[in-house]
C-alpha cells in the first residue's frame, strides 16, 4: 500500500466554513494507475493537494509510503515532497527563464546534487521523453505536449514513489493528450504509481481505476476501468 487515507476531513475556514472533504477513506496500491474524477468543486484538487503534502487535513490519518503525514514542519514536508512525490500540473508549472534541462534538474538542486551529475540525470530523463534535442530550449519555445513531457521528466528525476498529476491533459489538444497519457501508461507499465486528477472521462478510461468524488465524498463504487 503506497497511499492510505482514513477518515480524512478538510474544512476551509471563513464566514461560512466550507467542508470540502468528508470522511475520505482511500487506499492506493503500489504500481496502480488510477484517476480521481469529479465535477468542479467536488474536492478532487483538495484531495490531490493533501496527497501531495501541499495542503494539510483537519482530522483523519494519511500514510504515504509508510510515513504518517501529519503535523509536518515546512522543511520535513519539502523533503518528503522532493523524495516521494513527482508533480505534473495542468499548466505545466515550468520556470520560464530556465531551459528544459535546468527545469528538469531543479528538484535535484534541492536535494544537494552537484551540477554536473544533475544535468546528466536530467538529460537522461529528457532522452527518455524524446526531448534531448529540446534540452536547451526555454519553455516558451516548446509546444504544449513538449512542455508537459518536460514536466513529467522533472517529476521523474527524483525517482519518486508516486506521480500526482493534476489535470495533466487539461491544456492540451486531443492528440497531444493521447501522447501524454501514453507516457503515463508506459511509466505505469514500468511500475510507477500514478494518480491523475481529471474531469475528462477519456483520461479516466485510460486508467486502471477511477475514484469518483462528489460533494467531498468518495462515491460508493470505486470502479475498475
Amino acid at each position: 500500500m503506497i497511499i492510505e487515507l482514513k477518515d480524512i476531513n478538510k474544512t476551509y475556514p471563513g464566514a461560512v466554513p466550507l467542508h470540502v472533504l468528508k470522511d475520505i477513506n482511500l487506499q492506493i496500491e503500489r504500481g496502480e494507475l488510477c484517476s480521481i474524477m469529479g465535477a468542479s468543486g467536488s474536492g478532487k484538487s483538495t484531495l490531490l493537494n493533501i496527497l501531495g503534502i501541499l495542503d494539510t487535513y483537519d482530522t483523519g490519518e494519511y500514510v504515504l509510503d509508510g510515513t504518517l503525514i501529519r503535523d509536518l514542519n515546512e522543511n520535513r514536508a519539502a523533503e518528503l515532497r522532493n523524495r516521494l512525490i513527482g508533480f505534473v500540473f495542468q499548466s505545466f508549472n515550468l520556470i520560464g527563464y530556465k531551459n528544459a534541462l535546468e527545469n528538469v534538474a531543479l528538484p535535484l538542486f534541492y536535494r544537494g546534487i552537484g551540477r554536473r551529475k544533475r544535468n546528466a540525470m536530467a538529460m537522461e530523463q529528457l532522452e527518455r521523453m524524446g526531448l534531448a534535442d529540446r534540452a536547451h530550449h526555454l519553455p516558451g519555445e516548446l509546444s504544449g505536449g513538449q512542455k508537459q513531457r518536460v514536466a513529467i521528466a522533472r517529476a521523474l528525476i527524483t525517482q519518486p514513489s508516486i506521480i500526482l498529476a493534476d489535470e495533466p491533459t487539461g491544456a492540451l489538444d486531443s492528440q497531444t493528450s493521447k501522447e501524454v497519457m501514453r507516457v503515463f501508461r508506459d511509466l505505469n507499465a514500468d511500475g510507477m504509481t500514478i494518480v491523475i486528477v481529471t474531469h475528462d472521462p477519456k483520461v479516466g478510461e485510460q486508467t486502471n481505476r477511477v475514484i469518483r468524488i462528489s460533494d467531498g465524498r468518495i462515491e460508493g463504487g470505486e470502479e475498475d476501468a
Partner: protein
Amino acid sequence: MILAIFDTDNWREIGATLARNKTRTFLTAFGIFWGTAMLAMLHGGALGLAGFMARNFEGFATNMGAVIPSTTSMPYKGFNKGMWWSITVEDIDRAKRMSAKMDLVSPLISRGGTAAYGTKSTSANMNGCGPDFWKIQQVNVHAGRVLNEGDERQNAKVAVIGRNVSDELFGPDPQQALGKYVNVNGLYYKCVGVASQKGEATIQSRVDNAVYVPLGPMRTAFNMGNKVDFFVFTAKDGYKPKDVLPSIRRAICAGHPIHPEDEKAFWVMDVSEMFDVVNTMFTGIDLLALLVGAGTLIAGIIGVGNIMWIIVRERTREIGIRRAIGAKPRDIIVQILSESMVLTTIAGKAGICFACAVLHGADALTAVPGHAAAGFQLGFGTAVVILAVFLVLGTAAGLIPSIKAMKIKPVEAMKDK
C-alpha cells in the same frame, strides 16, 4: 549536500533574474550606489575639510598664547586709568621664572620697512624675535638655518629672510642669498637663512615677506631699550595657555603700576581656544555628514526593501513551484537574499569607487606644492564598514519579504497569476 553559494547554476540564476528587468535592477543598484557614494563622500569630505583647515595651521603651535599690551582701565599707585605701558624683556624673564607651566616664549618686535641688495629692493616687514620663535612657528628652511641662541647671545647682525624677499633680491635660488649682506631699513644684516611659512596662520606677518633678526639688534636699530611689542608663549604639555595666564599677570603687575585686577591692561590671544572652536566645528560637520549619509543610506535600503517586495510578489508562483518540487524555506530565502546581496555588493563597491575618485579629485584640486595633502580620502576600514553596513541592512531589507513569501502555502502560491 553542496552549498548553493558554490553552485554555478545559482549564480547564473541570480544574474539572469537581475538581467530580466534591467531598468529596475539599474534603478535599485543606483539607489545603493548613490547611498554608499554619498556616505563615503560626506565622510571623506569632512575629513578633507578638517585636513584643509589643519593645513592652514601647519607648523603653528596649537597651545600658543600671545600677550599684547593695551591701556590700563583702573587707576593704580597714583597713575590714572588709560595709561599706555610697554612689555619689557624683564617682564618676560620674570614671567618665565614665575610660571612652571610655561614652555617656550619669544618676545616680538615688528616694523614695516624695505630690504635691499645691490640695486634691487623690496618691501618687507622687519621682525625681531627670540630663538624660541622658530619652535613656536615652524618654517620651511630653503637655505641655511633659522636664528639661534648664539645669534641672540652675541647680538649678531644676522638675518633670516623670507622666500619672497629672497626671490626678489637674489632670484629663484635661495642658496644665492646665503652670506650676502642685506640692507634692511638702512642697516646691513648678514643673511644666514631663507625660510617660508608652512601653513597659512601667521604671527604678526607672513614669514615669506619678512626679514627676521635677533631681538638685540632689532631693539638697538629702533632705539627701543628694553621694550618689546608683545610676546608669544606656549604652555607645557598637559596645560593650556589660560593655565599660564595668572603667573604672567603677576609677573607683569610686579614690574608696572597696573592694578592686579585690571583685565583690560593687556589682552591675551589664546590660540588653543580657537583650535578648540575649530575642532568642535569639525566634529559637528562630521556628525552632520554622518547624519546626512545615514539618511541617504536608509533611503537606499528602503529602496532595496521595496524592490525586494516587488520581486517576491512577482515570483510568488515560481516560489510555489520550487516549494512543490522540494525547496525548503531556507532555500528560497537564500535565493532571494543572494540576489539582494549581489546587487548591494556590486552597487555598493561601485559607489565606494566613485566616492574615492571624487575625493581623489578634491585632494588634487586642493593640493598646494610643498604642503601635505588636505586628506580628502576614505580609509580602507571605513569603506569596509560602509559596505558591511549596507550589506547587512540590504540583506535585512530583503529578509522581510522573503519570510513573508514563506508564509504563503505552496498550493496558493502556484495559483498566483
